[in-house]
């Protein structure tokens, strides 16, 4: 059987498709699963609302990439806009635009899931073979060189005696360009549209791009149809063509936020769907160095620090670097006029560190909530609770110390009114500054949870086998099943869990 790719412009008439497994979403979860199932001989259909874009369209211009490759054309955020949410939307999902950093799920997270959420089947021994498989397929290996921005993080941590390490990335033939976030120009990043999706297609899977799933039709406790609309790629609006899939088994791999929203649109609101949504809320600090840093070039993330990952009864955080191309940089500082111009003029000399707060691990930390607005749009609410405020304050001060230790002439926070300091004497002002929603920039590049896995149907959406507690044959295989945030970049955990889930899903057909 030979697979096929259908794009919106080629779908002129309504059609109904039957298959063994319908997978909704082609990101880190859906693609690995599609390949695994197709290679087991199953008839697989993948539906993806984003377009099928390749490097021929990757101009490396942010103005092209964000509308093309990100959710809500790059405008996604929490309802109060306190948190900007960067999330992929194309064939390949987030893997097309992520910054390639890969970690196996840490032991402490697996232990927490076992001890607090009862997930005793997700052990190191059970998962490692799956991690090894995806590492081999995706070329995951330690990156040997640092750009100046990452070198500053390394130097600062070394000077302070803080833990830091080289990061691993899923690349082959990487040009070290720094443009992972706008689509790899040389196909070096081993994103899903270059790896597991072609594997799936080679094994006979069918991929429908520009095809948004509107709802699941549930009858008799099973999904009997998946109803989707073909989108006109230019306008983003439905073209009027409907795709209906009648599968034996249905898998939501639409990711955290979109996946829970799909279940809500399908009437599967049991009071748990959309709850416990985690974002790894990100704050950052900039440092102006005498020498050029060129933060827009070079592998974005090659050094990380988990020195503060375990803070006891306080929220932990970990540190990495972001790439700073002009558009993204311009949104970090929300001043205007000449003050904003001065900030932008420093860009070549600007280094930046980000701190990702590990939400969901502390008792009582429920994260955010995904719901639907009256007009059908997705709404994400994320209360910035005191524990998060404390972590953002602590991580901002820690980052400032690193930047100072790395030799910056000036440090600036991402506050509405940036706190600027030139030496350690200024750290007290940074400590005293206000932290919280709309007090400073907060981003999220990691979305997790919303369809939590657990043993108890009264407290979780899917079981340990990834199957929905109340709808037989409906599986959720993506980052939305995670009971907490991870404390590491989530892509490899999702790859690994999807690889792990293949037998479960195949067994249901």
């Amino acid at each position: 059987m030979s697979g096929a790719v259908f794009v919106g412009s080629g779908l002129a008439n309504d059609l109904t498709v039957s298959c063994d497994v319908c997978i909704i979403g082609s990101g880190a979860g859906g693609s690995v699963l599609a390949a695994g199932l197709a290679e087991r001989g199953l008839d697989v259909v993948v539906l993806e609302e984003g377009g099928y874009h390749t490097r021929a369209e990757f101009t490396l211009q942010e103005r092209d990439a964000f509308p093309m490759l990100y959710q809500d054309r790059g405008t996604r955020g929490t309802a109060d806009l306190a948190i900007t949410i960067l999330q992929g939307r194309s064939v390949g999902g987030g893997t097309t635009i992520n910054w390639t950093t890969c970690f196996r799920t840490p032991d402490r997270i697996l232990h927490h899931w076992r001890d607090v959420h009862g997930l005793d089947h997700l052990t190191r021994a059970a998962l490692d073979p799956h991690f090894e498989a995806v590492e081999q397929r995706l070329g995951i290996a330690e990156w040997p060189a640092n750009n100046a921005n990452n070198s500053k993080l390394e130097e600062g941590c070394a000077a302070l005696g803080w833990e830091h390490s080289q990061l691993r990335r899923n690349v082959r033939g990487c040009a070290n360009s720094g443009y992972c976030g706008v689509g790899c120009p040389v196909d070096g990043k081993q994103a899903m549209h270059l790896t597991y999706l072609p594997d799936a297609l080679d094994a006979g899977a069918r991929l429908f791009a520009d095809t948004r799933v509107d709802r699941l039709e549930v009858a008799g406790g099973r999904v009997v149809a998946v109803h989707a609309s073909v989108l006109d790629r230019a306008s983003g609006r439905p073209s009027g063509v409907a795709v209906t899939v009648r599968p034996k088994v249905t898998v939501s791999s639409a990711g955290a936020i979109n996946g829970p929203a799909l279940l809500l649109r399908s009437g599967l609101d049991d009071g748990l769907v959309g709850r416990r949504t985690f974002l790894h809320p990100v704050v950052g600090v900039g440092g102006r160095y005498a020498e050029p840093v060129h933060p827009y070039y070079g592998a974005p993330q090659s050094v990380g620090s988990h020195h503060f990952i375990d803070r006891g009864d306080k929220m932990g955080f970990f540190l990495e670097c972001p790439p700073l191309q002009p558009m993204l940089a311009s949104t970090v500082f929300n001043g205007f006029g000449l003050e904003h111009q001065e900030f932008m003029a420093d860009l070549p000399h600007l280094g930046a560190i980000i701190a990702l707060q590990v939400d969901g691990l502390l008792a009582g930390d429920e994260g955010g909530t995904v719901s639907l607005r009256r007009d059908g749009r997705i709404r994400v609410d994320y209360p910035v609770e005191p524990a998060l405020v404390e972590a953002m304050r602590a991580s901002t001060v820690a980052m400032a110390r690193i930047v100072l230790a790395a030799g910056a002439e000036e440090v600036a926070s991402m506050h509405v009114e940036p706190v600027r300091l030139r030496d350690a004497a200024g750290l007290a002002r940074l400590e005293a500054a206000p932290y919280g929603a709309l007090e400073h920039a907060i981003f999220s590049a990691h979305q997790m949870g919303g369809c939590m896995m657990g043993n108890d149907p009264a407290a979780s959406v899917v079981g340990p086998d990834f199957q929905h507690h109340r709808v037989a044959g409906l599986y959720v295989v993506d980052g939305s099943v995670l009971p907490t945030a991870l404390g590491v970049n989530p892509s490899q955990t999702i790859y690994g869990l999807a690889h792990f889930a293949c037998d479960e899903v195949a067994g249901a057909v």
Partner: protein
Amino acid sequence: MPTRRELMKVGAVGAGVLALGGVGLGLRGTVVVAPPQPLQALSPKAYSVLFAVAERICCYEGLPKASELGVAIGVDVLLASAHPGIAAELSQGLMVLESALTGLLLDARATPFSALPHEDQDAVLETWRLSKLPVKRTVYKAIHGLVVAGYWSDPTVFVGCGYPGPPDYGNVGLAGQLWSPEGEE
């Protein structure tokens, strides 16, 4: 973004203030700017306010004006391809910023934003940026983000931030320049 209900509350209070004491102030209307092409998502009024805000946010020395780069019309085009609800909420935010009625309540001004002198427009923007009212900060953040993103993603101003632009790979042969995991070709 604030919900429409929240924005309507702000507007309703402003109307009440006007009814109690603002009558007879001779409030001016929006300074309408003609778009360079037909609008797809924003109303002419909302576009005009966005145009005025963009001119002030991106008022830089030695660099093109936002209007020269088509920042406001670019936002309209972007919104046209997103869910209509996003444009609707942004428009409401723009009109709250513009409104003389809410201006009376929130900023002690009886002139629409678009009709204010530049210095006064800057003062209003600064007030909204630093406001303790979450609604004002949210509206400011939404508008600011769209405007500066539209401006600084335009290659013609990369020189203004010392950004050389992306390399041109052109899909040429890069053998020997690319890195792979050890042991692989």
